[in-house]
């Protein structure tokens, strides 16, 4: 208990508290600007943190990271441009809601579910961080392969569109992930002699293209709607009934996010996707997902924020960052002479708890920020489209260019935008493509690594219990519907169906 108290003691220090608040506010703003990612913001702030003590410095960066993940959802809802990869799933239902004139309701829900997800995960972390670090440590290539297969098992059902089209979308995503030098052979694939493609296609340009640029093209043909009707409801926050409807989704997603977050594999994006898919699977309105269902916001938002807190565990305890931002925070640790690794918890246990304290503050701050801001930001959805979208495009260009300072990334964004527009027209959603891109290199690399470790003997997967567990979950995820249906028919016969949730 002692290190926990020492760690949370950081909140009693006014300077530390001030920099944590500053980090939170910068994080929300940066996350909300599609032109700037939280990894860039952390990298830009790094030199300034040098003048701080190590613990407040890292806490500030952690608060920024946490707030950045939340900030990303603001633009995802308002202009269909996720400010950060974990917010991609929020756009699926958030943007349709904003278009319908319910931007405030969507933003408010995003804020509240983010905060609940974040706090639940932080409580779990405070109670069980060392144990969770052990779980994260026990995940080797075979376990990651099984986890990735579990992720892929959701492809067919992730959006309401035709399962075959979802699978094709997922396969296209996997294909995008194969671009670049193959990890296990060192061979260049689909690089077409462009050196920028050597290390693979960056995620952010694809994301901005598929969402924002393709939306811009769709908007070119839209006839102006009557703005007066939208005006009335746009700034309304979610109602009590909304929360009654989503509290189960929030709890479920918080659990998913906390668990996926501790695994160092693009944790929060994957958590958001799984959170979205499970929200859809268990919802009564599953078929309407993608057209502006409020559960479709609560699901990914609670999960990605829960995962952001969780991702500090592998970053600190293993030195393996779960995201681009965590990678820069890792650099921040080293600048301050803190060595990440299994022994960090033994040597400096209070550091971890200070970081959790900072993230807790960040969560509380952006609850206020998010709800007050929702009213303000939702007015953006009232800007006429002729003025909104050109500015969005300019920000998209900055965002795609900024990550790697590369024109190739801007071109990729545009190509992704054109392809995204035509795919959408023929009923292919963005969700499975994003899922494929996120899981692509994980699937292939962990399989190749496992096979070398197992001397090319596939049966040795059976010696890894955790891997088996995920394979079983994957099978259940695919076959649960037919199975559930069959069992149900046998049991209940002609009586009224009372499927509980």
């Amino acid at each position, binding site marked *: 208990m002692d290190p926990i108290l020492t760690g949370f003691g950081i909140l009693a220090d006014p300077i530390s508290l001030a920099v944590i608040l500053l980090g939170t506010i910068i994080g929300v703003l940066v996350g909300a600007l599609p032109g700037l990612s939280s990894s860039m913001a952390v990298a*830009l702030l790094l030199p300034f943190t040098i003048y701080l003590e190590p613990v407040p410095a890292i806490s500030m960066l952690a608060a920024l990271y946490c707030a950045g993940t939340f900030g990303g959802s603001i633009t995802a809802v308002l202009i269909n441009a996720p400010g950060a990869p974990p917010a991609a799933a929020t756009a699926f239902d958030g943007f349709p809601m904003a278009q319908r004139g319910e931007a405030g309701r969507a933003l408010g829900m995003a804020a509240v579910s983010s905060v609940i997800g974040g706090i639940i995960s932080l409580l779990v972390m405070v109670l069980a961080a060392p144990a969770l670090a052990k779980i994260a440590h026990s995940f080797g290539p075979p376990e990651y392969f099984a986890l990735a297969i579990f992720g892929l098992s959701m492809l067919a059902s992730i959006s309401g569109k035709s399962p*075959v089209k979802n699978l094709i979308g997922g396969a296209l995503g996997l294909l995008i992930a194969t671009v670049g030098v193959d990890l296990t052979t060192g061979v260049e694939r689909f690089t077409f002699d462009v050196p920028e493609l050597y290390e693979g296609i960056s995620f952010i340009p694809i994301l901005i293209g598929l969402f924002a640029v393709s939306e811009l093209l769709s908007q070119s043909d839209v006839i102006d709607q009557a703005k007066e009707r939208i005006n009335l409801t746009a700034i309304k926050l979610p109602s009590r009934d909304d929360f009654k409807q989503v509290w189960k989704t929030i709890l479920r997603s918080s659990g998913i996010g906390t668990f996926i977050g501790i695994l160092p594999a693009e944790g929060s994006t994957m958590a958001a996707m799984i959170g979205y898919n499970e929200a859809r699977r268990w919802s009564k309105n599953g078929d309407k997902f993608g057209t502006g269902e409020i559960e479709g916001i609560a699901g990914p938002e609670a999960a990605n924020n829960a995962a952001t807190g969780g991702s500090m565990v592998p970053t600190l305890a293993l030195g393996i960052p779960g995201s681009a931002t965590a990678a820069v925070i890792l650099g921040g640790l080293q600048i301050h002479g803190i060595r990440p690794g299994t022994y960090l918890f033994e040597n400096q246990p209070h550091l971890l708890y200070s970081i959790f304290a900072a993230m807790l503050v960040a969560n509380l701050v952006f609850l206020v920020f998010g709800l007050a801001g929702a009213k303000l930001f939702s007015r953006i959805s009232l800007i006429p489209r002729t003025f909104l979208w050109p500015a969005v495009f300019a920000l998209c260009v900055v965002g795609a260019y900024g990550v790697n300072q590369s024109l190739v990334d801007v071109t990729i964004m545009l190509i992704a935008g054109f392809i995204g527009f035509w795919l959408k027209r023929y009923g292919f959603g963005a969700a499975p493509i994003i899922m494929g891109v996120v899981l692509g290199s994980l699937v292939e690399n962990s399989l190749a690594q496992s096979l070398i470790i197992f001397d090319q003997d596939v049966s040795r997967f059976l010696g890894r219990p955790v891997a088996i567990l995920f394979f079983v979950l994957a099978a259940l995820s695919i076959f649960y519907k037919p199975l559930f249906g069959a069992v149900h028919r046998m049991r209940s016969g002609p009586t009224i169906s009372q499927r509980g949730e």
Partner: protein
Amino acid sequence: MIRHWRDLLPGCVLLVLAGVLYWVTTGFGTVPPSFAQGMQAADMPRLILGIIALLSLVMIYQGRGHDEEAKPVITWRMWATTLVLLASVFLFGVLGLTLTTMLTCLVIPLLWGERRKLHVVIYAIGVPVCIYLLFTHALQLRLPQGVLSPWLS
């Protein structure tokens, strides 16, 4: 004929794409035999391409006898916007971000039928200036300025 084959067009495009990319995989470099262990570099892409081809066939088969779903009409505006976006990426390298943004913010609203000409002009100057001040000065992010680089850094 085609009307009763829903998804025939995207299916064929995907099949052609899979074929072309399969041909690209045959050009992948080879590794010295001492490094080759298990999976080859081309294996995974070929597997994925095979799956895409197979699923496309399934999709075409599922769509037989169905009519194409009603889709929003594509007008000349979409094509013009596409051209503007394409042109902007080419101009980006030459003119730099600020000037290119100025042009897109001028052309797109007019293209989309905005009538308030004065608003458009103010907008086309305001947006790039704001972006320049915000990113280059407040956030210290270096953006390419092309022909303006001697003056804006």
